[in-house]
């Protein structure tokens, strides 16, 4: 009796193990965290679907938590249970995660594919690799859109954002000091190369706030990238800053009477980081190699108007997948749009963000 029981037990566990083994070979769930909406959709089309077609046993699960990526990874790491394989983050988040030891340093040339002409990945991405843990995907910019039917003459420079006589009406700006202080100083006549030197002084910060003071009553402050397009479409504001891809979709896809004002657009980068202690590391590296090669980055631009981070991808950018329009002129990096651009100083903001955000919030509450 006892023997039989032992035998059935052994058989049962063998079957169990067998099932689990088969299940493992069949299905691997890989959690990839990104920003959701149109952005995740473009990654789904350009990266996830072809990768899953090549690896039928891999199932990619999208998680739209990138906005809270740093705090969630920190919490997961404290709980010693990191469930995310790969995370899409903006450069400042990537730098912070790397400095806190929460993201893995990447050997770019060993992990990533070289350009088609053999240029190693680190050269192809160039100085967009702003942190050893960061693999840039796209260049995006924070820039302005305005209602063509609600302004008498179209704004042409950043000065017009601060010019209530030329362009009366509400404008939408992001509810944080980053970018706004730089714009205020440039509009106040500071040489763009000296912006951070000026901001390094107490008087410089005062000067930036004084300039913002001139339009404070006419500003609607946004917190989510989707707000400005909505405010513009509703006619709640006549102009507003947001990410260029959001403006592209409200102009070209929704055909709203809105146009772009690219003057002193502020470039930022978005890309991948690998959380320390995350699952399926080998698979993640395989995915990274595939999803950041020259063709894949160029493919993403078919779905959303953000510039690919590889130099070698630029010539391959084609037409929009459904609208059929040429995407190259809509890239923030296109020469006609990129006459005046600013890449904000990550290091300076890492030092001063806490302090100036406090001052900014106090200023808002006045």
């Amino acid at each position, binding site marked *: 009796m006892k023997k039989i029981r032992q035998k059935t037990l052994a058989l049962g566990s063998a079957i169990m193990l067998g099932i689990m083994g088969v299940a493992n070979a069949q299905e691997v769930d890989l959690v990839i965290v990104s920003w959701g909406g149109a952005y995740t959709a473009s990654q789904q089309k350009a990266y996830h679907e072809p990768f899953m077609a090549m690896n039928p046993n891999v199932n990619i699960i999208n998680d739209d938590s990138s906005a809270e990526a740093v705090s969630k990874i920190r919490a997961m790491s404290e709980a010693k249970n990191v469930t995310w394989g790969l995370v899409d983050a903006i450069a400042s988040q990537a730098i912070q995660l790397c*400095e806190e030891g929460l993201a893995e340093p990447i050997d770019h040339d060993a992990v990533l594919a070289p350009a088609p002409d053999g240029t190693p990945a680190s050269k192809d991405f160039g100085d967009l690799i702003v942190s050893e843990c960061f693999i840039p995907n796209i260049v995006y910019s924070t820039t302005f859109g305005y209602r063509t039917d609600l302004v008498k003459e179209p704004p042409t420079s950043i000065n017009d954002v601060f010019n209530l006589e030329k362009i009366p009406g509400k404008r939408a700006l992001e509810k944080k000091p980053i970018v706004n202080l730089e714009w205020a100083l440039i509009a106040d006549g500071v040489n763009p190369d000296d912006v951070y030197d000026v901001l390094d002084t107490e008087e410089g910060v005062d000067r930036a706030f004084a300039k913002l003071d001139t339009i404070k009553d006419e500003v609607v402050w946004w917190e989510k990238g989707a707000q400005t397009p909505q405010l513009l479409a509703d006619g709640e504001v006549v102009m507003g800053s947001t990410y260029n891809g959001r403006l592209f979709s409200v102009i070209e896809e929704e055909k709203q009477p809105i146009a772009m004002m690219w003057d002193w657009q502020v470039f930022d980068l978005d890309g991948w980081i690998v959380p320390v202690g995350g699952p399926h590391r080998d698979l993640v590296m395989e995915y990274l190699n595939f999803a950041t090669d020259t063709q894949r980055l160029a493919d993403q631009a078919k779905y959303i108007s953000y510039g690919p981070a590889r130099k070698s991808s630029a010539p391959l950018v084609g037409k929009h997948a459904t609208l059929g329009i040429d995407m190259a002129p809509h890239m923030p990096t296109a020469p006609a749009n990129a006459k005046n651009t600013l890449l904000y100083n990550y290091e300076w903001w890492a030092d001063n963000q806490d302090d100036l955000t406090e001052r900014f919030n106090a200023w808002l509450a006045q």
Partner: protein
Amino acid sequence: MVENVATTDIVKTADGIPLKISLAKAQRRSKIRGMMLVLPLFAFILLTFFVPIFDMLLRSVENHLVPDVLEHTTRELVNWDDRSGELPPEEVFAAAKLDFEKGHSERTILRVGRRLNYEVPGFASLFRKTARRAKNFESPYKEAFIERDKRWGEIDTWRLIKREAGAFTMSYYFSALDLEYSPEGNVNFKDKDSRIYLKLFWRTLSLSALITLLCLTLAYPIAYLLSTLPLRISNLLMILVLLPFWTSLLVRTTSWIALLQQEGVINDLLVGLGLITDDGRLAMIHNAMGTVVAMTHILLPFMVLPLYSVMKTIPPSYMRAAKNLGATPTVAFIRVYFPNTVSGIGAGSILVFIISIGYYITPALVGGTDGTLISNFIAYHMSSSLNWGLAASLGVLLLILVLMLYYLYDRVVGIDNMKFS
């Protein structure tokens, strides 16, 4: 004889044990059984309520990072007198070199930089700059550090490290109360330009009080109507109160945006009626008014229900008797009806007030700049600035505030007088 009486006096059970003891035993057993029933709830509350609150208390003062990573430096700094007016001795710099080297290879040193950057902006980059090269520093280390960055030659830099060298810190609480250390170590109020949290606490309290008052004024007649109408009609009206209660919070909040915004329904209506001009559209949302209107609507059922349940129990004969005795309807209401509803008012008010003090989603969506509350800043420090210590200390202060108000309420009205249903 006497002895005999004493023994027979004690009542015993069948097996010879005194009844008293046997009863106590049986009662203890049933008590334990009763306790076993509440045990899951007790464990649940412990795990989901007390542990997180304790964790929050701990986080608001916890500072292990600095002494753990700057292990040697903080130990050497003990011997340095920060009022001596001189830089720390060479031993401190040598210890710092050790800590920076180790912290760089373990990728922990920049966490300390970010931590100290909360106190004085610039420490993040100072640590970043130094950590990269610390490996190659050679004796004398003091010169090597100062050559890398002249801030290492400033006494205030070392004063800060010495001040934050302990395993616990009060600095998060000081930030949460708009206070800061001067370089000499005194605690002062911040510049007027940077003070924010006291104002926010005040705003949270005053807006919550206003919302409670509005809820009360709106809910009182509704509850009265509900309690006096015939059941057939009052049930129908009750559904009208409960329907929004069951609707998603986000749906209700965003509907208010559609109604109140400048190009929204109400403004369109007012312009259409010619009451305001097209340029003079009212700003009714993304400000304090938006928060008050939307939250009053959302919290209204919390006021209506306790009031209703109290009013339902007041016999109509009371009012009739008062009138019969010669009181005018106003006097009858003030002297007879109203005092009977006080327990409902108390319950509803404390419910609405305490819920609104910690409210988060609605002010975040419709509050703009002057309608956001302290909880929005706690969320900001949790998810954006990642200053969890400050978030925790703001949370603790909010908790203390609520407990104080609760205590006051208990003294004035009495918790036992509350009636929720």
